[in-house]
């Protein structure tokens, strides 16, 4: 029968108070754990998808939109750019070593179809689960999540719909069918959500009714041309991802050159992502503040509960002293009760935070976009645990001090008098 056991019995006896305190503290802790896990994982997801993309070149507009659209495949394009201008930048002998062209604008079942080349797959280290990488017109290699969600299999054909998301009234390109030739392994990147094809397929699909003759790159059975080296004609693409500079100076000079001297826009993903998190950070800080207020309220509630309990338990504590408990033991007993309440709140809060993140991670509509999991532990949570024990200690300190100073003789005398 230890003092810990005595504390446990006491807080169990006062289960309603204990329950309310635990819920209050657990809610605050749960919110903070939730914020920690979600913030860290979203940041990781964002940084993982940058994957060394140094710069994105596209049509003028919002640089953030350019990044969100072409790196994260979340927003709409700022517009199209001419292939000729893109080729000029990709071939810049002083600054650009590697560039990947992108064309966007269509979807299948809500998943984006991205026109690109094999360099995109190499850049993201994408591996095939089945089939091959697209190398002919209208061939498509699909991401693992697309395969899972749509049920598309090798050899299946489909036609695309105009727009980047599934819409009831969207125009569909029924004249041209894509054929699935490869399925990628899950990579944990945005590529899991994409259908990858050659850019000429986009041109073909979108030139319906515009040209009577089949262009040479659209001849059946021919391998896809290298669009960064082919005659540009009037073709357009959506963006160019610069994945490797020729020298460090390019990081400073190239964006400035493009933004000042061309009709294009250059945006730096690292910079824009930081800007996103700065903006998200305001909201996160507000919610975090709210959570800390909840923890403060829980501390106050714990303090009031222990303080009231102390008043109600004067005689019990005096009896403990009469049985030989020292002042230090009574002090420790009250602190233990504060810590036990903190432990219960912590257990509830950690469980709530982790389970909520895990649940949202499986939630339809979030699971494929955010890849969140509650089954991970962040070092910040250790700091949270220390903070909560500190809160438990502070809440119990005054009641513990008062129990330390209890005048046993007077209390026992009064009770028997």
């Amino acid at each position: 029968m230890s003092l810990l056991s005595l504390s446990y019995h006491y807080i169990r006896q006062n289960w309603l108070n204990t329950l309310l305190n635990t819920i209050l503290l657990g809610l605050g802790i749960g919110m903070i754990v939730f914020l920690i896990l979600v913030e860290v994982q979203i940041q990781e997801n964002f940084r993982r998808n940058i994957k060394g993309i140094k710069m994105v070149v596209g049509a003028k507009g919002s640089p953030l939109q350019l990044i969100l659209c072409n790196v994260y495949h979340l927003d709409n394009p700022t517009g199209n750019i001419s292939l000729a201008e893109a080729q000029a930048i990709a071939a810049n002998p002083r600054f650009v070593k590697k560039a990947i062209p992108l064309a966007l604008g269509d979807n299948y079942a809500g998943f984006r179809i991205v026109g690109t080349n094999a360099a995109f797959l190499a850049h993201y280290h994408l591996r095939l689960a089945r089939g091959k990488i697209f190398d002919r017109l209208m061939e498509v290699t699909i991401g693992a999540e697309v395969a899972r969600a749509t049920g598309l299999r090798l050899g299946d054909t489909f036609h695309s719909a105009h727009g980047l998301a599934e819409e009831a009234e969207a125009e569909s390109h029924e004249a041209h069918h894509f054929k699935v030739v490869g399925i990628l392994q899950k990579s944990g990147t945005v590529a899991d959500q994409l259908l990858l094809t050659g850019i000429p397929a986009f041109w073909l699909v979108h030139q319906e009714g515009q040209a009577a003759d089949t262009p040479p790159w659209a001849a059946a059975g021919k391998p896809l041309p290298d669009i960064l080296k082919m005659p540009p004609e009037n073709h357009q693409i959506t963006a160019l991802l610069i994945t490797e500079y020729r020298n460090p100076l390019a990081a400073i000079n190239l964006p400035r050159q493009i933004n000042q001297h061309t009709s294009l826009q250059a945006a730096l993903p690292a910079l824009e992502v930081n800007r996103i998190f700065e903006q998200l950070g305001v909201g996160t800080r507000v919610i975090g503040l709210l959570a800390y207020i909840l923890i403060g309220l829980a501390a106050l509630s714990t303090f009031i509960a222990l303080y009231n309990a102390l008043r109600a338990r004067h005689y019990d504590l005096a009896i403990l002293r009469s049985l030989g408990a020292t002042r230090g033991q009574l002090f420790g007993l009250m602190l233990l009760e504060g810590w036990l309440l903190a432990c219960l709140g912590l257990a509830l809060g950690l469980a709530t935070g982790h389970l909520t993140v895990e649940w949202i991670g499986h939630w339809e509509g979030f699971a494929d976009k955010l890849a969140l999991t509650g089954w991970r532990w962040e070092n910040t949570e250790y700091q949270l645990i220390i903070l909560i024990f500190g809160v438990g200690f502070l809440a119990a300190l005054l009641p513990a001090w008062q129990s330390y100073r209890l005048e046993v003789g007077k209390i026992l005398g009064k009770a028997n008098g």
Partner: protein
Amino acid sequence: MNLAYRIMLKIEKLSYQYQQTKVLQIDHWEVAPGQSWLVLGASGSGKTTLLHLIAGILKMQEGQLWWQNTDLARLSESARDRLRAKSIGLVFQKPHLLPSLSVLKNLRLAQTLARRKGKRQACLDLLEKLGLSEKMHALPHQLSQGQAQRAAIARALVHQPALLLADEPTASLDDANAEKVVHLLQDLSQAQGTSLVIATHDQRVKTHFLNVLKLD
């Protein structure tokens, strides 16, 4: 001075006052091991103060109080706490069992504080002797008044103290129950070789004791 074996408790010129009002004055008093004493006095005569001084709950002001070989005035508060935990049992007018603990756990707590861990069997034996075996897992509010009083006596004796101090144990009882409690305290303390000091204003108890200390 060596008082070991002959005298367990010795008081010389002991006095105590609250806010300049003297509430207790004893010139000389000795309690031998195994002896039973009745401290008889009206309300305010200092009975409770005397018990609290013996138990080390109150700090000595004047005079001497020897506990076996030890002068209590020289002991620190924590040393007095240890002495009380190990060697003294206290019984009050009301049982005052800890309400969140079962009867058995109330006894186990007294053992823990006396650093007599692991003697569960001693608790069970004592509860059986007091007819409380069936109530060992009951919480205090589930006991009758008599059962609660017996449980409190068991708690005071479970760590086999050298001295049992009882403060007005019969004050709220009728004649029959008062007699029962006094017999119980005497029998149990005698069986354990524990000295017994009962402080009371209850004249009914007087007939059961050979040794009586009267306080004015």
